[in-house]
């Protein structure tokens, strides 16, 4: 739809989508049907507005069209049930909602922890992001029917789990919010990590994740993990222009052209994470954002504040217990105390990361730092054979080739 609409109208539609859906879901008490109806209204807008012009009240237009679709749907459902001679359809009771923002309710519902990541991502992008099924399919390189199926499975899962269109209770709040943050982070990563690859809408996924995180931050400005996540996205995305070379090859942080980094995004990210860290409750997104900010702050790779980065990887390790974080801490430790210290730390995590290519990749780097080129070469080759990313493989093979020439 975005292709036929001017950018402003596309943005407006996507901004209005969750608002209209919120009203309709509350009014009808049927989230699944309301979501279908809003999707149809968005497609209708994309079809009619370019020819007939944008209506004076776009929100009212969408709401009216979506309501009509929903009513038709309910009617045909009733007719079907009458034909089947079953009990008359009860008028749906509107769900109880005391204030609260519909967009927030939608995020909580679409990122419900009972859903698989793939389902939650697809549903969030459509119901909250206002993307079409076709756009989501194009971004994830899967058939449109697969996305449609993920969305409908997500909805029935929501229905059967008894999740309702209302704010989580105080008790549920933390895990439910974590689930929302995770889904937004996955959407961001999908767009960021694969930028330059196939898929027309791929790069836009990062922008969409930033938009949703921004929206969430505006709704809950006091939550420092939300601010941390938004900061992390901005600080990471700022490096996108320098992250790949002309042939799509990965450029490591240490050799990226820093003049290509997006200064405005870095300033905003640094401001956000500084404010978040001043509040209490450190979380993993804040720790990651702090690390990203330290990298982005260095005018040159050699001026990177590695002791601070080492400190934050320590925090992150404690918060997550994730052995992959230990790999990163080993790199920071090597930069502070030398490669031998880093390699010793790697030995301690080996058992928890069997066959993980990044263990070989980090070992390769540290052995090269320590001056042991033959060993570095061996580990670069092992990492290249095991990675499941084409861009990463190219990078690792090139490093191995460079060393191979030097070793002879």
């Amino acid at each position, binding site marked *: 739809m975005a292709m036929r609409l001017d950018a402003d109208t596309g943005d407006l539609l996507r901004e209005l989508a969750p608002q209209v859906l919120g009203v309709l879901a509350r009014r009808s008490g049927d989230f699944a049907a309301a979501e279908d109806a809003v999707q149809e209204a968005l497609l209708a807008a994309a079809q009619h507005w370019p020819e007939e012009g944008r209506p004076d009240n776009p929100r009212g237009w969408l709401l009216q069209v979506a309501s009509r679709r929903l009513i038709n749907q309910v009617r045909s459902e009733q007719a079907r049930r009458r034909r089947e001679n079953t009990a008359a359809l009860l008028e749906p009771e509107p769900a109880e909602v005391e204030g609260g923002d519909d967009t927030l309710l939608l995020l909580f519902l679409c990122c419900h922890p009972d859903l*698989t990541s793939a389902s939650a991502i697809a549903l969030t992008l459509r119901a909250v992001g206002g993307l079409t099924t076709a756009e989501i399919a194009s971004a994830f*390189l899967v058939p449109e029917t697969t996305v449609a199926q993920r969305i409908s499975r997500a909805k029935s899962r929501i229905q059967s789990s008894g999740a309702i269109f209302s704010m989580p209770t105080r008790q549920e709040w933390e895990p439910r919010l974590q689930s929302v943050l995770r889904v937004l982070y996955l959407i961001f990563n999908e767009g960021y990590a694969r930028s330059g690859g196939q898929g027309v809408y791929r790069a836009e996924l990062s922008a969409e994740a930033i938009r949703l995180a921004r929206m969430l931050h505006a709704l809950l400005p006091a939550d420092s993990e939300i601010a941390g996540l938004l900061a992390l996205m901005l600080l990471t995305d700022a490096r996108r222009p320098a*992250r790949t070379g002309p042939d799509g090859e990965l450029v490591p942080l240490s050799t990226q052209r820093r003049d290509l980094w997006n200064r405005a995004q870095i300033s905003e990210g640094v401001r956000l994470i500084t404010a978040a860290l001043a509040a209490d409750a450190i979380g993993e997104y804040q720790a990651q954002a702090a690390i990203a900010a330290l990298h982005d702050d260095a005018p040159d790779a050699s001026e990177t504040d590695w002791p601070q980065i080492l400190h934050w990887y320590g925090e992150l390790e404690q918060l997550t217990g994730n052995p992959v974080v230990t790999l990163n801490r080993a790199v920071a430790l090597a930069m502070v105390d030398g490669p031998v210290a880093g390699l010793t730390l790697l030995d301690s995590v080996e058992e928890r990361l069997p*066959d993980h290519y990044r263990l070989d990749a980090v070992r390769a780097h540290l052995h090269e730092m320590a001056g042991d080129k033959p060993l570095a070469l061996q580990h670069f080759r092992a990492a290249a*054979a095991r990675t499941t*990313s084409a861009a*990463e*493989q190219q990078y690792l093979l090139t490093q191995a*080739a*460079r060393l191979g020439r030097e070793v002879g």
Partner: protein
Amino acid sequence: MTTFLLLKHYSGDGAPMPEWTPEEITAHIRFQHELVRELAEAGELVRADGLAGPEGAKVVRFGGPDAPPVVTDGPFPEAKEFLAGYYMIDVETAERAYEIAATVSSAPGPDGAPIYERIEVREIMGAPDTDS
């Protein structure tokens, strides 16, 4: 239109890629990117992917009713006699991929008995981890 599957093999003339120079690797990869772009522009491309290395490849067979899939590191037969078709799936875990492979392997043959077909499971190369 007729759809074809073109299978790339590791075997080619000359030394294996890990022994090439950095420039040779870059030129090879540029060639692949350009070919994908040309085919897409010609309206002839459906999809192109690299496969993760054979180190992670598995062979899966139906384990029998109510039994888990039998997952092994081989044997990997010659492609020409072996390849009959493919499923491309997008799932949450490798275990789910093995489960589906076992179902494919359970397809019935003579007398309706499962033929325990060997299914080679290879991961399609995806995105790199986010840098840090």
